[in-house]
């Protein structure tokens, strides 16, 4: 038996619906159709009245989730593509994110954002928006890279009393597989050492974890041992795990699929420089997507985002080899 990243998300939602009567799912085409990616396949039939089709109204979808959360429910809002969440951005960052701070009433809503690039996705079906959400106080932002994390972090997200932006990567939906669902997991807020190494640290998250692991494997052939830190959560950032890794390796490369200006890479480098400058043997480096809209053609897209090859090149540059 094997289970994909997408199936894990479906299973997590089935688990939540089964075990918590306050959970419901609301989003476009999530009902009988089972969602644009089939992340809610058969759930409407299994849980009548709790998997609800929404009109194409991201603002109203997220706003209504805030109202339902105030009433004690735990909505999961599926936005069809992360890119479309900008239409409901106001409700997430101004309504949901400020509710607890302003009123002491928790806002346990989970915003599922199918994120990131896939071949042929183009400018409006490919975006990584984790950093703009992470910028706002009051939100937790998850970026699972594995089947296990997709499952366990989604369950934990819905259980948390705060609004969570759950950035699930579309590139991982179908081809990333695991043998089984996890029995236990690291909590939200903790990073994971995806591969141990002594020569340099790569801090990354989401689909880029796999590009980095591939790069690390290639570098290992030359005897270079790269440590790969999977952030798992980009808000909060597990600074301790990052600093501890840099203390071991003395070198830092940050890799993210999102655009370069600001963002997770900039934040991580800023923290390491501020809190662990003396640990560094070389200036920290970062690789992001190019600072253009995400291109449509697969040949353009193939070099737009970081890849194992560009990560290897950046690693060699950082190691001066």
């Amino acid at each position: 038996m094997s289970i994909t990243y997408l199936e894990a998300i479906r299973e997590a939602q089935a688990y939540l619906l089964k075990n918590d009567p306050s959970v419901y799912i609301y989003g476009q085409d999530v009902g009988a159709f089972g969602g644009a990616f089939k992340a809610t396949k058969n759930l409407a039939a299994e849980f009548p009245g709790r998997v609800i089709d929404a009109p194409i109204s991201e603002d109203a979808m997220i706003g209504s989730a805030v109202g339902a959360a105030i009433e004690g429910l735990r909505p999961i809002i599926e936005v069809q593509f992360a890119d479309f969440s900008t239409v409901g951005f106001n409700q997430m960052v101004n309504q949901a994110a400020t509710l607890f701070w302003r009123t002491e009433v928790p806002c346990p809503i989970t915003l599922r954002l199918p994120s990131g690039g896939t071949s042929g996705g183009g400018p409006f079906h490919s975006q990584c928006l984790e950093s703009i959400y992470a910028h706002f106080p009051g939100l937790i932002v998850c970026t699972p890279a594995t089947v296990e994390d997709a499952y366990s972090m989604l369950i934990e997200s819905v259980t948390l009393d705060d609004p969570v932006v759950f950035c699930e990567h579309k590139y991982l939906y179908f081809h990333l597989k695991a043998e089984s669902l996890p029995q236990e997991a690291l909590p939200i807020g903790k990073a994971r050492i995806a591969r141990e190494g002594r020569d340099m640290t790569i801090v990354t998250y989401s689909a880029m974890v796999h590009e980095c692991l591939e790069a690390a494997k290639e570098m290992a052939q030359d005897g270079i041992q790269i440590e790969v830190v999977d952030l798992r959560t980009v808000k909060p950032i597990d600074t301790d795990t990052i600093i501890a890794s840099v203390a071991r390796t003395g070198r830092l490369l940050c890799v993210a699929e999102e655009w370069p200006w600001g963002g997770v890479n900039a934040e991580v480098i800023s923290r390491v420089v501020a809190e662990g400058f003396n640990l560094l043997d070389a200036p920290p480096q970062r690789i992001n997507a190019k600072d253009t809209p995400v291109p449509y053609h697969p040949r353009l897209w193939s070099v737009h985002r970081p890849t194992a090859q560009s990560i290897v090149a950046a690693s060699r540059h950082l190691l001066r080899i």
Partner: protein
Amino acid sequence: MNQEINRETAEQAYRYMLTARKLDERLAQLYRAGDIFGGVFLGKGQEALSVSVGMVLRKGDVYAPLIRDGAGRLAFGETVLDALRNCLGSPLGPMRARDGNVHRGRPREGSMAMISHLGASISVVNGALMAKRMKGESGFIGAACIGEGATSTGAFHEALNQAAIEKLPLLLVVANNQYAYSTPTTMQFACEKLTDKAVGYGVTAHEVDGTNLESCWNTLQQAAQKARNGEGPQLIVAELLRLCGHGEHDDAHYVTDDMKQSKVGKDCMEQARSLLISQYDFSIEELQAWEAATLKDINQSITTVKQEGGPDPYTHNWNPLATRELSEQPIGTAN
């Protein structure tokens, strides 16, 4: 039960309106005296509509008032003390000095705390109503209050459409007070009447003279009964005039004399006073006694709140999350 206004309810409504008006007047004075941080936004001219919304709601209903709904808030259960604490920045207020003036509420008691983005509260009320339905509750309604300016927002469109699709017991109350800050209605919408918008969404609309308490009361009662009966969202459009600036910083010089002299320019308080005296036989002395009593209450509350002082930024809890351990700025860190 659909209920025409009567002597008892008219008195109750008038007294809320009176308290709201007097509270507004005192807030304006406090603002001019420099006792208030930020702005002061008054509901002068909108009390009849506002109180009719507040009074048609029951415990268990959902209420999202907007900036000129002091009367409705009082009718829905807000205390003068809560209102003043919020406006004067007391840490004991409902928002604990983290938000001010009209941005206040007690969501757990059904009173939503508005954000500044107009139209954004409508879908929040929708969600609360959907949740109540999912939880198996019945007989509830929700009211979201906006001005004509908010009808131009995408949030209004999305939320009214959503309410219609879900057949929610929503009262969407539009106070057409003729100006969104300084923008006249001619630059806000091009349909003949705002109730025309209801047609496009498949919802029932009600028009009402917002300066007349009796009309507002009866219209809100009818609309609420329809909503409670499962007839879906009700759009209520009240025509009135904002008898003050957008905020107290605004002298509203752009409001034309013709507008002030027109039907919408009538003061709902004056009309309500006439209603009580001529139709319900209250004496001028009784009305004066109510006014004195409410002013005394307001002044006592002001004294109390002023003694409470403001928040202490050094001992303040700066954690924005309910899940404290996930806060990136735990208490005690340098900032």
